[in-house]
């Protein structure tokens, strides 16, 4: 105890994360000291460059192949293949989302001003904007990087909060429909805090069981200790609540539709893509690394959760009338599909690589398509803001075929039609699940097949509401006072272009991306 060793930090490995956090801090300083008219001019390049730089650093590490085989920073953070892959994905997503954020007219002039009040009008007239969104976004991104890479429950908790707190605020900053925005913000905050309390209590109980919060330690004590200790099981359940809440699995999905609908669309895009990726990464780490030896206990439970999530997401989406709300339910359904992948664990850890790469691939293609879809949503506008209500989308295909066509393609990708990226994502996950179910002596073998069949049924139901939007856009006559199509900024165009490119490209030639995912997954999570 008394001969304490000085802690070591592998700055090189952590560089991407540190860069983002550093930029965020600088952003705060800018807010503090720079006059407001130059702030944006500083923030935008700062943010984008930091993200790009971080991405570059990730690439460097991958290229160097110097992927550490042990947790770094005294076992607090695990920067392994999957983590780097997830980092790369998150950084790309956040980059394009910042491009969206950058677009005019999404964020409130002065959050403090009461909606409809005189000083709101003043603020708008004065053209002031909340440039805080940039550092906030950076902090959120930093949290997203830390969350899935953390290697003990405490770090994970901190990552969780660092990711969430800025998002709570960002949700409340919509320029239009501020009541909704604020309500979304509050709901997200209260429920988020509530769930993270569960996560924390779960952590406490696991700590009580294992005497440590490091995944390695938990894993070892599971190997020796009793698997039936209520402390362990309840603790795990509470941990699960926190994580499943973040990915929006039923019955913890309730916040998603409200928040997605209320939040400014760029922020929704960030949550629907980045947060999901990060959360799934974290979930995998906890379930596979920390509690890998417990999978006989948790797989049946997660089976039920996955099934419930898919069905709830797919079925409730059918009757949605708001485009963002519908996409929220679609993302719930997709969370369910991802959980199928999470279930696909094998006896021999090496085989888990297959499932892991499937999940990573799915995350990649799904999140990119999602960002694209939300980017399109930002462009369809009414006088009062974005045209959220589906009925306003009628006949869009007649008025702007290109935009409608792109959106239709994204929807088909969500539905998993062949020759789109979404199809291969689904295929990869289902294949992994079936092969894990097919392995000898797996008591869940039949159940896995059943789950996959359930999955395809759910996707058939889901297909209905995607197709419904296409019908609206193409097969029904446009409304007289239809929404206008905003002239997109370069940023938005770039976002849509990128995600379309990926959706098409991967849809035709998935192999390169699959190679990336395989390579990332091959090394598995460090233990």
């Amino acid at each position, binding site marked *: 105890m008394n001969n304490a060793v000085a802690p070591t930090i592998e700055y090189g490995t952590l560089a991407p994360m540190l860069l983002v956090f550093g930029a965020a801090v600088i952003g705060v300083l800018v807010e503090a000291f720079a006059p407001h008219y130059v702030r944006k001019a500083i923030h935008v390049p700062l943010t984008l460059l930091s993200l790009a730089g971080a991405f570059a650093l990730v690439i460097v590490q991958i290229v160097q192949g110097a992927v550490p085989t042990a947790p770094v920073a005294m076992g607090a953070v695990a920067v392994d293949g999957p983590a780097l892959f997830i980092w790369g994905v998150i950084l790309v997503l956040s980059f394009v989302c910042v491009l969206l954020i950058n677009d005019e007219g999404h964020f409130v002039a002065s959050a403090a001003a009461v909606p409809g009040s005189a000083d709101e009008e003043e603020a708008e007239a004065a053209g002031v904007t909340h440039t805080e969104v940039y550092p906030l976004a950076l902090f959120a991104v930093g949290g997203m990087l830390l969350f899935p890479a953390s290697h003990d429950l405490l770090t994970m908790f901190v990552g969780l909060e660092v990711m969430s707190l800025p998002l709570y605020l960002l949700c409340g900053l919509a320029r239009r429909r501020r009541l909704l925005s604020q309500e979304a913000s509050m709901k997200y905050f209260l429920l988020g805090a509530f769930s993270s309390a569960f996560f924390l209590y779960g952590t406490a109980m696991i700590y009580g069981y294992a005497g440590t919060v490091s995944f390695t330690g938990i894993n070892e004590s599971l190997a020796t200790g009793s698997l039936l200790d209520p402390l362990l099981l309840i603790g795990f359940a509470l941990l699960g609540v926190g994580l499943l809440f973040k990915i929006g699995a039923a019955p913890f999905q309730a916040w998603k539709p409200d928040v997605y609908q209320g939040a400014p669309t760029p922020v929704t895009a960030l949550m629907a893509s980045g947060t999901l990726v990060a959360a799934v990464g974290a979930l995998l780490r906890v379930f596979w690394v920390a509690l890998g030896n417990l999978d006989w206990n948790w797989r049946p439970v997660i089976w039920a959760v996955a099934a419930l999530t898919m069905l709830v997401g797919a079925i409730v989406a059918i009757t949605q009338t708001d485009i963002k709300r519908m996409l929220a339910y679609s993302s719930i359904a997709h969370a369910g599909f991802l959980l199928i992948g999470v279930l696909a664990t094998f006896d021999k850890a090496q085989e888990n690589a297959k499932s892991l790469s499937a999940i990573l691939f799915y995350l990649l293609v799904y999140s990119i398509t999602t960002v694209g879809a939300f980017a399109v949503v930002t462009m369809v506008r009414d006088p009062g803001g974005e045209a959220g209500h589906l009925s306003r989308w009628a006949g869009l295909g007649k008025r702007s075929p290109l935009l409608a066509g792109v959106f239709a393609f994204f929807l088909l990708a969500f539905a998993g039609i062949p020759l789109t990226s979404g199809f291969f994502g689904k295929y990869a996950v289902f294949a992994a699940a079936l*092969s894990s179910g097919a392995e000898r002596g797996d008591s869940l073998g039949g159940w896995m097949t059943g789950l996959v069949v359930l999955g395809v049924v759910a996707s058939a139901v889901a297909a209905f509401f995607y197709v419904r939007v296409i*019908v609206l856009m193409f097969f029904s006559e446009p409304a007289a006072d239809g929404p206008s199509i905003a002239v997109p900024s370069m940023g938005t165009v770039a976002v849509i272009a990128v995600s379309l490119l990926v959706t098409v490209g991967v849809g035709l030639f998935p192999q390169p991306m699959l190679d990336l995912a395989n390579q990332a997954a091959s090394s598995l999570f460090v233990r």
Partner: protein
Amino acid sequence: MSPWLPILMAVPVLGAIVVALLPKGSDKLAKQVTLVVSLVVLALTIVMATQFRTGGPRFQFQAAYDWIPSFGVKFGVGVDGIALVLIALSAVLVPIVVLASWHDADGTQSADGTLITPKRSVKTYFSLLLVLEAMMIGVFAATDVFLFYVFFEAMLIPMYFMIGSYGGAQRSYAAVKFLLYSLFGGLLMLVAVIALYVVAGKGTFMYPELIGVIKDPATQKWLFGGFFIAFAIKAPLWPVHTWLPDAAAQAPAGAAVLLVGVLDKVGTFGMLRFCLELFPDAAKAFTTPIVVLAVISIIYGAIVAIGQTDMKRLIAYTSISHFGFIVMGVFAMSQVAQSGAALYMVNHGFSTGALFLAAGFLIARRGSPYIADYGGVQKVAPLLAGFFLIAGLAGLSLPGLSSFVSEFMVMIGTYSSTAFGAGALTVAAVISAVAVILAAVYILWMVQRTLHGPTAEPVKAFKDLNAREIVVLAPLVALIIGFGFFPKPLLDVINPAVTQTLVNVQVDNPAIAEKGAGQ
């Protein structure tokens, strides 16, 4: 590595891109380009078909390129006799359909001036048509199960848009129903495809390598089920047929031809190719129930057809009856029946195609699909009436027309089949033969109510077929009559493939007749 099939698929795709990229307002050009491209494809197909050696290996013009190594997926193509004739069918039908739907997207007016369909994007329609052609060729040419699945599902999208954007009043309902129905089946098949890959454990989807790999009967049954349901929906087989009448009735005539003439054949083709050869034991085990379903389709489809008031729906139901025959032939497990079924797929494409097109021309003149709105057409438009009648006679498989040969072979092959459950097959053949009476009723009754009798008032204004429409129908009629008397060219190509199939299914069911006189 033969480039034929990839080229055959590439040409229409490129054509589609060109058409799509044409500048605004160049509708006429778009049509001409499409026509030329489809004719080029037809020419290439014919040349390829002449290269096909009937004595040669089962799969010819094979080519395989790595596509998704980590899934073990190859872009593997190649054709046996059956696939060849079906590809030829598609290649023949597309140019005809292009000509037939020349004005479909222009917005048509009925004889009494009322607008039937509003103006829609011509370029989109024809580029979709070409994309569809590429996929139709691909789905028949695929020797990689995964690739087959990809085309099987992707085909839905262009057809979905063709029905949804260019169809009749109920088009969006019909389009969605069509898409979801097929998608559902397809997804079940997807599970089976994956499971096939996993269970086989060969690390490949290449069809020839998967034959006879699945041994366990129980597994075979499950996988068979997954494939069969998808194909039964596609075919369509009773009781999962109800999407077809809606889709066919709402689709523009041209699209309907491709839908019923080619797309649905993928179902029966799949049964013959995949259900039988990959899961022989399951196929044999399920023969009886499936044949029962087929017979129900035959009789039920015919009876419901009689009761239809809408021409296109009526034709759709007749197709359901005909598909019953095809399925019955496939599962009769005898050389004659299966050759007949394969031949039926082609002939049905011609006969129903002609019927849909003729009906389409009729409807285009009156703007109503309802039989009751017609009468005495023969007086004012004898040519149209003549073609319509011939097409109808092909529909009731009149001897001397191509469909008779196939129907005859199917029935006789089923009756005399010695395969598993032969007793049931014999009965099935006899019951199905009743359809020849019902067919006469539904076709001739329609003919009587539309072409014959006193000329209805709005019909008086009809013009007879113009040159384009004659060019559309004449080749089909020629083929119908030609293959009616000389089916040999087709059968010589089909037979070896069927023989191979039966070998793989391990059914010993020799040709039922020794050569006739003069051999």
